[in-house]
């Protein structure tokens, strides 16, 4: 055994899944090197042997197997880590990096988990970046679809792909994103890590990237002059930049006639506005500005709140927090107990809270309405950030009443309008500027 093999062996001495197998091919001994957690060894061996049977010499075999022949040690170590199979001849003179038959580690194409498209194909992106890019290429077969890939990270090298349609996505945007991706120094573990590379938005609830599971949606975004990023092992297409319209419209809407899709979008807008201002409006009207009510309504509200010990603000904040807690908890529940807990949480708690006269009937109606309304928007993260933004408005409402509700609402809009990603404002509806086709 010569130098290279020894060196590699010592390098991986504390990896139990590392293997060095000796094999006789054409009366010459070779070493097969790799990780058996990444390489399906028996099948790969068989494959090498079959190839060897039709090759006259070792050299021919290696040429047949791979085009990466006689690389240096560092390259070999890197290839081993990437899950490749390395063949080194016993006399250490020849080596080759070959693509083995890999262990099946990623799930196949499944149905989307976080989105439920209506009247659409039910494919969802999976974990493998190549499959994801493939899914896009399959449906968008034009030579103008460009693909740039990157290896980023400090500890691990993670694969990152950028897709855009040449002539659609603005050139300077592509250039900037390209620069930002090349500059990544730290590890990219989550979407948020990637998000940070596009500019400082640490305290902002709105992400630069819109994550979608649906190839249809990603392709639509590409056609609408945007960039789609894929991260290895991340089953989402990350659309850059994220615009407000993503929250309100999905490409699947247009499977319905225009009037219906318009209606759907209108309802989403209503859902957003209702989530933002309904609880605040309740507090403002009940505790600060009851004179706004018409007489009958004032009497009705008065009646429904009779004997409730908590002030309107405390009552509302308690219920809103409780509901957000429940929503968060339900996500983490195992599927087997989920429905039971939901029933107890929703029905019994709602009933009990009202009967105990802790909160008013009216508030329960308001809370139910906003919980449902907040889910009308597209994308889980959008729904979450809308739910977050209602809190400041609620606090302002408890201090300033109706005035607070509307100032809060206006300030929310001003805040959203101030967000930009690479000079594209968040509140634009579409990116008009087009790139060159050159």
């Amino acid at each position, binding site marked *: 055994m010569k130098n290279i093999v020894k060196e590699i062996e010592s390098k991986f001495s504390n990896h139990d899944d590392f293997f060095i197998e000796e094999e006789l091919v054409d009366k010459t001994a070779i070493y097969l090197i790799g990780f058996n957690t990444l390489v399906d060894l028996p099948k790969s061996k068989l494959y090498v042997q079959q190839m060897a049977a039709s090759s006259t010499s070792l050299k021919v075999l290696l040429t047949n197997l791979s085009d990466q022949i006689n690389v240096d040690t560092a390259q070999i170590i890197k290839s081993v880590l990437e899950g490749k199979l390395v063949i080194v001849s016993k006399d250490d003179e020849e080596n080759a990096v070959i693509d083995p038959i890999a262990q099946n580690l990623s799930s196949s194409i499944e149905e989307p988990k976080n989105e439920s498209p209506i009247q659409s194909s039910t494919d969802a992106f999976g974990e493998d970046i190549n499959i994801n890019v493939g899914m896009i290429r399959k449906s968008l077969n034009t030579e103008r679809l460009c693909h740039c890939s990157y290896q980023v990270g400090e500890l691990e090298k993670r694969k990152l792909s950028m897709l855009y349609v040449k002539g659609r996505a603005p050139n300077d945007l592509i250039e900037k994103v390209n620069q930002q991706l090349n500059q990544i120094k730290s590890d990219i573990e989550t979407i948020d890590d990637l998000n940070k590379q596009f500019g400082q938005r640490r305290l902002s609830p709105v992400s630069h990237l819109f994550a979608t599971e649906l190839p249809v949606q990603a392709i639509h975004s590409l056609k609408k002059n945007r960039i789609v990023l894929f991260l290895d092992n991340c089953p989402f297409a990350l659309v850059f930049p994220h615009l407000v319209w993503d929250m309100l419209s999905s490409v699947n809407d247009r499977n319905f006639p225009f009037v219906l899709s318009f209606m759907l979008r209108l309802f989403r807008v209503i859902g957003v506005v209702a989530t933002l201002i309904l609880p605040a409006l309740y507090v403002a009207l009940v505790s600060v500005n009851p004179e706004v*009510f018409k007489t*009958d309504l004032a009497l009705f*509200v*008065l009646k429904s709140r009779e004997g409730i010990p908590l002030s309107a603000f405390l009552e509302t904040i308690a219920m809103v927090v409780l509901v957000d807690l429940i929503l968060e908890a339900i996500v983490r529940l195992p599927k087997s107990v989920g429905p039971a807990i939901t029933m107890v949480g929703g029905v019994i708690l709602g009933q009990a809270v009202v009967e105990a006269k802790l909160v008013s009937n009216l508030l329960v109606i308001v809370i139910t309405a906003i919980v449902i309304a907040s889910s009308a928007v597209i994308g889980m993260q959008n729904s979450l950030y809308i739910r977050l933004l209602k809190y400041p408005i609620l606090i302002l409402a408890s201090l300033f009443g109706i005035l607070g509700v509307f100032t809060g609402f206006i300030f929310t809009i001003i805040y959203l309008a101030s967000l930009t990603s690479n000079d594209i404002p968040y509140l634009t509806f579409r990116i008009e500027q087009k790139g060159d086709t050159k």
Partner: protein
Amino acid sequence: MKKNKRYKLLIVFMSIILLCGCWDIKDINKRTIPLVLGISKEDGKEYKLTLQIPIPNKDSKISRIVTGKGETIASVLGQMRTNSEDAVDYSQIRLIVIQNNLAHNQQEFKGLIKFLMDSEEIPSRALVAITDENVENVLSNINDKLGVHASSIYDYFNKGAGWAPEIFSTPIWEVYRSPFLYTRDIAVPVVRSGKDTVLIFEGSDILKKGKIVERISPDEYQLINVFQNENKKGKGKIESLGFASIMITNSSIQNITSMKGNQPLVSSDLNLKIHILERKEGITDHMIQKELEKITEKRFYHILKQTQRSHTDIFGFGQQFHHLISYHELKDWRNEYYPKLRVDFEVHANME
């Protein structure tokens, strides 16, 4: 720089909490919400205020009557606030009933309306009504009626177009405005407590420059309503002609104004669409139409003569002469022009 920014934010948040005055906010269930305010003056000296406050319970059909006396209205309102269990929120007051002895005292009535208008708490859109009875009786009458809602007095004035075209509502701001108008006078409804219903509508008092000059009957007022508010067209009014009764389903009016020397002229056409409800035998459509036209015209000329005598332009005819008479001369509309006004009033009744 960054630290500085943080301090600035802190100051902004502190001032939000300190400046908002949020410590005295009362939830709606901790407030007492009076709906009707009755004002009278006893022995010409002390003001007596009566509040009708609904008691919130399951069907909210009960209300209580709270009274207070004092030298000025503001002091009584304050005193009631002191004595009340909850915070009294006057912002829901919808109706202000004024006893006639107070209403007929021009000076005091003017002062009262000015106070109500200036008061920040009492909404200026609250309606005004006058009663000949004791105010307290009118308000307490609500509780004696079976199954009547606490807000019934307010509902009484808000039946909606077509259900009772004779009744109209006059908010505080219109009463307040009326002394400043040169060319139009307004009317305030007069009510009294009913035997079986909460209120009975008695007609309306006509206010001229803040002074009550005369009272007109509900029938007459409907005609005035047609002239004053073209949107309230007096639909659904049922007229009895002796030999037939008809319902007016629609009405529209067209006025053409002109000046002949110094005499203002109005030719006015009232179109009525009618629907015959019942008739005696042998009565033709034509007879009914003619009779209705005659009755309405007669009624109109009667009021016109009456108001011309008292120099009170209740129809608001002066409003239509704004482009014909200069502003300075309009000041004398009531005294100079209105008594000379000639109106060619023609009614055209049409079958539906």
